[in-house]
């Protein structure tokens, strides 16, 4: 098995959570696959090979059962009403928060439910925007931005961690700057030291790229931000589902992740914020369930996390997400990470053997997530995806919501295979063998 040592991504405590369990093998993965009904089907006359978990992952039976059990036995609005079902629903909803918080090394009240990671980042951006208008009083002043302030992102960001900051800059007069990437898609840390400076108020970056699979050095970037007192926002959408992540060890101020990328349902995501920071932030959405006292002209708000959870919540989704987290915990995130690292290296090694295929991101032997995006030279990604789909292989094609990164790497679109704990080495090999047939089919000479 390929060793991986992401110093900033692995916490020793979580890495050692299953010392008694041996590394995952294809035999274990076959057993895991039995928990995922959707994987057992035929697509275009071939067994489905699902290699698009970077976009959305599949649900184990236990997750679907948790959601069904909630609707069959406990469905009620949470945090209101005194009847038995309302109490049970509230308890299950809050227990889910505790489970998810523990999974990422956070305190329970540091996890705010959102619809997805995109909403979590927008929650931050609009809270800071409101703080810039003076809302939230003196406690919120540290989040306010104006002319002369700088927001820093990286060139590899998903649009979800770029456009909300572009818009925040437009609303507040702040300037948006970015840390460039090298030709292999890794972050240019020397430039980072020039871009981040005394005017930087906020540094937002992805933990792991959804395109190149590269992992960013969180500790170095946090240290850089701390030098200037800037807040740090981590997009952990591609890491919380795949690696042991301890947000306290990483010491970021905020982090976001999405339920549907970690074996959970759609419609649920989370914002993590350090308790003392969330306490000072003005709300984004307002309305029911987030107030203490209201009169016709004013309202006072609850403490976090309820302050940021206006309206009836995503109750069944939160409960189902907790079931997904239990599934991952029982499997062991260290084992999941090691298995996917192996699949990632197998992808990269195999791609290097196919003429006319260019890998986006770092090459063989360099730490990466269990995914790989490629450009089949002379064949558009949409055509590549069609060819693979004909063989029952599901991959993502296009710019993967990262247009600036694709432009930087000199392509408009790419084809991405992304693995999860339920993918076998045979599936990776089938993808590689089928990809090798693409250029000949489309008559592209090598």
């Amino acid at each position, binding site marked *: 098995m390929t060793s991986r040592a992401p110093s900033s991504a692995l916490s020793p405590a979580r890495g050692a959570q299953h010392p008694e369990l041996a590394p995952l093998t294809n035999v274990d993965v076959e057993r895991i696959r039995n928990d995922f009904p959707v994987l057992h089907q035929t697509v275009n006359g071939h067994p489905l090979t699902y290699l698009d978990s970077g976009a959305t992952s599949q649900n184990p039976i236990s997750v679907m059962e948790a959601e069904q059990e909630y609707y069959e036995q406990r469905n009620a609005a949470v945090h209101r009403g005194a009847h038995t079902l309302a109490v049970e629903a509230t308890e299950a909803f809050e227990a889910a928060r505790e489970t998810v918080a523990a999974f990422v090394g956070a305190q329970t009240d540091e996890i705010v439910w959102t619809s997805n990671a995109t909403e979590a980042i927008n929650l931050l951006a609009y809270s800071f925007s409101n703080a810039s208008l003076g809302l939230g009083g003196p406690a919120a002043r540290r989040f306010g931005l104006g002319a002369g302030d700088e927001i820093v992102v990286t060139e590899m960001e998903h649009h979800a961690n770029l456009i909300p900051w572009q818009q925040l800059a437009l609303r507040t007069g702040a300037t948006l700057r970015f840390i460039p990437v090298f030709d292999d898609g890794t972050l240019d840390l020397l430039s980072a030291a020039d871009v981040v400076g005394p005017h930087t108020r906020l540094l937002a970056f992805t933990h792991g790229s959804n395109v190149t699979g590269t992992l960013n050095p969180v500790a170095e970037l946090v240290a850089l931000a701390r030098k200037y007192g800037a807040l740090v926002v981590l997009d952990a959408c591609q890491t919380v589902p795949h690696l042991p992540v301890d947000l306290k060890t990483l010491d970021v101020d905020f982090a976001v992740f999405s339920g549907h990328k970690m074996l959970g349902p759609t419609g649920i995501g989370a914002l993590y914020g350090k308790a003392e920071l969330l306490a000072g932030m003005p709300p984004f959405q307002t309305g029911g369930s987030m107030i203490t006292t209201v009169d016709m002209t004013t309202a006072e708000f609850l403490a976090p996390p309820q302050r940021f959870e206006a309206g009836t919540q995503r109750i069944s989704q939160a409960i189902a997400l907790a079931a997904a987290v239990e599934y991952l915990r029982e499997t062991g995130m260290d084992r999941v990470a090691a298995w996917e690292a192996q699949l990632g290296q197998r992808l990269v090694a195999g791609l290097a053997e196919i003429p006319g295929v260019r890998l986006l991101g770092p090459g063989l032997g360099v730490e990466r997530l269990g995914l790989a995006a490629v450009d089949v030279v002379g064949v*558009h990604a*949409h*055509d590549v995806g069609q060819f693979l789909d004909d063989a029952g292989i599901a991959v993502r094609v296009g710019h993967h919501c990262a247009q600036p990164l694709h432009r930087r790497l000199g392509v408009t679109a790419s084809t991405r295979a992304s693995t999860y704990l339920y993918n076998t080495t045979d599936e990776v090999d089938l993808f590689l063998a089928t990809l090798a047939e693409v250029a000949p089919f489309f008559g592209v000479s090598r």
Partner: protein
Amino acid sequence: MSDLQQLYQTIILEHSKARHGAIQLTPLADAVALGSARGLRVAESHQINTTCGDEVTLRVTLGGDIDAAVTELVWTGDGCSISQASASILTDTLRGLSTTEARALLDNFREMLRSRGKIEPDEEILGDAAAFGGVSRYPARVKCAMLPWVAFEAAVIEAESH
């Protein structure tokens, strides 16, 4: 022939490389002024397929009359083989037709594409564009094939308003 071979017929793959009518477009204002001096109406339309990033900018030159002839069709673009071949075949197919004839052909093409494989393409009417018959079985790709034709429709309306 498999469904995939039906989708990617040889003629489509050839056109996706040959790219008839694809040029580096001059500035639109220059083309409009140049056309205007010769009694011709020039307009263009830029269309993007947001799901995959296919792009086509199609420039149409019409004669000055009512139901004018499509005298010139040029384009630039980037994208999948279906969208690029469609633009190439469009220029061969619609150049020289009157706007009424071109619109009738376009309607036939669209109806065939949206039929989910139920309507056999009529080669008498569509010519080489009949090769896109296989696309109609792939609803996700209909937009790719239609992209330049949508651009043509919009550009003609724009040119007629001049």
